């Protein structure tokens, strides 16, 4: 008797989601650097409006590719302006969108690493010269704007050629942060917005990279053609004071 009702329960639970047929909440795609900040903003929005919004995080380049291949996202928050512009010129967006945040880069060293962090990368230079760099983490510059900014910073300090063979490339800035914080690398250049999160900040030391050391990480968002009214509201919400406060708290500058 009990066994049968247990089995029935499992069957009902399985049948409860004929995945793909069921109505899904609207889904927005966001650059990985927003992992903590956007989650907080979306939770606020959901509480305010009594609705649900799903988020998918990834490298801006990866998400752009997915959108071009038909992924059902309704909004895209990128880590730069180039990837959204590609979608706009492909005719997939409502309009050119808006810049919602300006991101910053940080040099991070996990506890116990020989790397001493400073904003001019002097500690990293010394370690490179002493051949003390085993692995250094950045995001893949081809798909992640934060990886591009990291490359520009390393080039500016004349470290790029020397450190190149020592780089581990994350698929996204969060994966680079994984590499940098778990002690698998001596450190990495990762998003300031991730470093500020206690889950990471407690794992090592960091220094904020001056904005002049790389092209600015102007982060643009766009509504995609299939955006529904809830997502349109969310697009406006991001530009409101509550969301801007969260962005600032997470280390972004807001326009």
């Amino acid at each position: 008797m009990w066994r049968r009702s247990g089995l029935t329960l499992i069957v009902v639970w399985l049948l409860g989601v004929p995945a793909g047929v069921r109505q899904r909440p609207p889904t927005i795609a966001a650059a990985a650097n927003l992992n903590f900040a956007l989650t907080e903003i979306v939770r606020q929005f959901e509480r305010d409006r009594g609705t649900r919004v799903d988020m998918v995080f990834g490298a801006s380049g990866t998400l752009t590719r997915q959108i071009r291949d038909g992924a059902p996202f309704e909004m895209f928050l990128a880590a730069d302006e180039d990837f959204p512009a590609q979608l706009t010129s492909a005719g997939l967006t409502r309009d050119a969108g808006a810049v919602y945040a300006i991101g910053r880069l940080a040099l991070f060293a996990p506890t116990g690493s020989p790397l001493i962090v400073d904003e001019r990368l002097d500690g990293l230079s010394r370690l490179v010269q002493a051949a003390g760099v085993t692995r250094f983490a950045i995001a893949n510059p081809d798909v992640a704007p934060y990886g591009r900014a990291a490359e520009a910073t390393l080039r500016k300090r004349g470290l790029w050629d020397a450190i190149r063979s020592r780089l581990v490339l994350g698929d996204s800035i969060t994966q680079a942060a994984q590499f940098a914080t778990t002690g698998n690398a001596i450190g990495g250049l990762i998003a300031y917005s991730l470093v500020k999160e206690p889950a990471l900040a407690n794992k090592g030391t960091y220094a904020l990279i001056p904005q002049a050391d790389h092209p600015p990480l102007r982060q643009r968002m766009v509504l995609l053609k299939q955006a529904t009214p809830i997502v349109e509201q969310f697009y406006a919400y991001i530009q409101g004071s509550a969301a801007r406060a969260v962005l600032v708290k997470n280390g972004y500058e807001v326009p």
Partner: protein
Amino acid sequence: MDWASLRVSLWLGAGTIAVLVPLGVWFGRLLAIREFRGKLLVEALVTVPLVLPPTVLGFYLLVTFGARSPIGQAFQALAGHSLPFSFQGLLLASAIANIPFVVQPIQRGFEAVPSDVREAAACCGLTPWQQFLHIEMPLAWPGVLTASILTFAHTLGEFGVVLMVGGNLPGETRTLSVAIYDRMQAFDDRSAGIMAATLLVISVVTLMTTTALSRRIAPSRG
């Protein structure tokens, strides 16, 4: 624990079995009892997903069915959504990836049926359909069962092609294996750990079931 992802994984495993095993029975039997020109090539093609990197399958599926291809656009017009980044797309990818896991055990199962048994059945006046249902199927059954369980286990473990073709959509294409990756990226090691342990337990139980069943079935075959 991400229940929605577990559900997607179990659905995908069950769906792949439902789509693939009937086809596998038909095709595995064909390969077992027929000789034809080009059989070597066909058998190689059936086995190829076993050695192919998931990225190759993902690449071809996205190029063929993506929103930028004519086929993809036609599908979009008919179904109202694109095939990649949907559960159906994931099912297609999973079915292709599992072809060797289904066809090979079933082929071996039907090969184990002696040809004189089939001939005797035909002599007794059984129709081909009766012959299949009452003589061959009961004898080849262990192969079909192995194929189903392998498919289920392999589908739960699929990662690369799911991420490429499915794109991590919560409740639709975010399987348990992708959810673990997603949680790791969000520095949520606790959830990732729970889900990894769940997947480990499911896999071990599945394989134990296979072994137990094959032991129980094996003597009756001899």
